[in-house]
């Protein structure tokens, strides 16, 4: 899979001396292990390198000022070659050192032309409330569409509204361009389990027999396909609330997709709420990503939506958490 990076997801807020931040390192390592190719639009390379140059000049200046200050106070400082101590990193060099498969992609004239038209006429993917279109965002968009059109499914890594707004959904889908606004969403798109999805999956597995014997249309052989976008909230009573989207293969040739909300603590499971159930028939050679889901009550009429399973009574507020808050208040007042 080709993974195209906008600069906002590669942004590093300091001079890269030894390594990129761990979350980026881990991602690139995973891409290397699974043979995915990183595509760097020229814009991304230019912006990353420019920012690193700013950090580099600042670092050099600080070292030089420190040297002057020390010498002015009679402290001996050996002569040194600052350029051999502080290196100016470039994105190409960093990825080369990581031995990641990558390519710098220059926009074509066609990319520029299409981006220019979209900018002038505020065409899709222009979000409705955005006042102006940056050409750079649209050039990256056109580059990404071109790559996915020519080379097959690709991922565009970007948080930018122009790339992510739902107005672009149809064009992205038509060209097999998957848009991910974080590394975790990219892991999910690459079918790599994240730590969050693993936790939710383990919790579901704990109660699998209860799920099988519920009114959901599941048979022997049903299994979890994926847990996506798991979000968590801790509560004052020590309970963890998690919301995500789940897909389960039903065991009889169908895929069930639903919103999942669970409440649990490390040693107990409290409730499970399943809602917005959708069902799709899985035919041979079907890709899970291309299935056509329909609301379950169009297919099976007697499934409650939402479906709630209760396992244990929810506890009252936790004294442990209150104690922690009290301790913080004490520190703040100290």
């Amino acid at each position, binding site marked *: 899979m080709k993974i195209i990076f906008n600069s906002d997801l590669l*942004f590093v*807020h*300091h*001079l890269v*001396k030894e390594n990129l*931040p*761990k*979350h980026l390192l*881990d991602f690139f390592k995973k891409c290397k292990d699974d043979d995915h190719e990183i595509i760097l639009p020229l814009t991304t390379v230019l912006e990353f390198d420019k920012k690193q140059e700013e*950090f580099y000049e600042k*670092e050099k200046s*600080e070292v030089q000022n420190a040297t002057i200050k020390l010498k002015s106070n009679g402290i001996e400082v050996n002569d040194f070659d600052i350029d051999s101590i502080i290196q100016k990193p470039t994105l190409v060099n960093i990825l080369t050192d990581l031995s990641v498969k990558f390519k710098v992609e220059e926009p074509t004239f066609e990319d520029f032309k299409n981006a220019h038209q979209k900018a002038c006429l505020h065409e899709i993917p222009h979000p409705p409330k955005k006042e102006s279109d940056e050409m750079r965002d649209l050039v990256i968009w056109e580059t990404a569409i071109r790559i996915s059109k020519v080379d097959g499914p690709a991922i565009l890594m970007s*948080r930018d509204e122009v790339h992510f707004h739902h107005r672009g959904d149809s064009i992205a889908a038509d060209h097999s361009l998957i848009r991910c*606004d*974080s*590394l*975790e969403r990219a892991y999910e798109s690459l079918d790599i389990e*994240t*730590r*969050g999805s693993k*936790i939710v999956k383990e919790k579901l597995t704990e109660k699998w027999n209860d799920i099988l014997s519920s009114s959901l249309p599941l048979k022997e052989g049903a299994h979890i396909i994926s847990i996506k976008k*798991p*979000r*968590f*909230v*801790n*509560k*004052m009573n020590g309970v963890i609330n998690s919301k995500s989207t789940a897909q389960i293969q039903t065991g009889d040739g169908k895929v069930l997709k639903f919103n999942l909300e669970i409440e649990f603590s490390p040693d107990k499971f409290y409730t499970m709420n399943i809602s917005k159930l959708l069902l799709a028939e899985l035919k041979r050679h079907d890709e899970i990503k291309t299935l056509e889901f329909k609301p379950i009550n169009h297919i099976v009429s007697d499934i409650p939506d939402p479906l709630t399973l209760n396992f244990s009574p929810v506890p009252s507020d936790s004294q442990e*958490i209150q104690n*922690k*808050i009290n*301790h*913080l208040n004490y*520190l*703040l*007042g*100290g």
Partner: protein
Amino acid sequence: MNLNMGSQCFRNVDIPLLWGSRAVIADESNKISIISISKEKVQLEVLFDEPAPGINYEIIADGFKIIQDDEELYSFNPSNHLLTGLSLKLPECQITASNIRVGNSTFQGNIVMGSAVGISVTENGIGMGASLPPEIARLIQ
């Protein structure tokens, strides 16, 4: 507030470490709490190395990301006390028992007395012994 944090000694300061608009506090065992002082409210986001109650977060490989209105603000790694800005464009900040690191700058063994902010971190730079940013001062007043 009087606090020893990352080998710095903060005496009579309002906020020992201000990371953007977030106050960062460490207790005696270097467990980190983070309070957001933004918009119209003050909100506890991290409580002694864990997401605070009521805060939306996503668990990641080495910690968690704080999420607000579906936007990923920053990540926190409890094992090495590293704060990394995501949509918040701030330099990395790490608080250990022996120092506070912000980007490539390391603070060790400093004493800050009587300032509103001990160490101030913004997108543009770092400062010591700063006053409260006006918007935060208005909020606290």
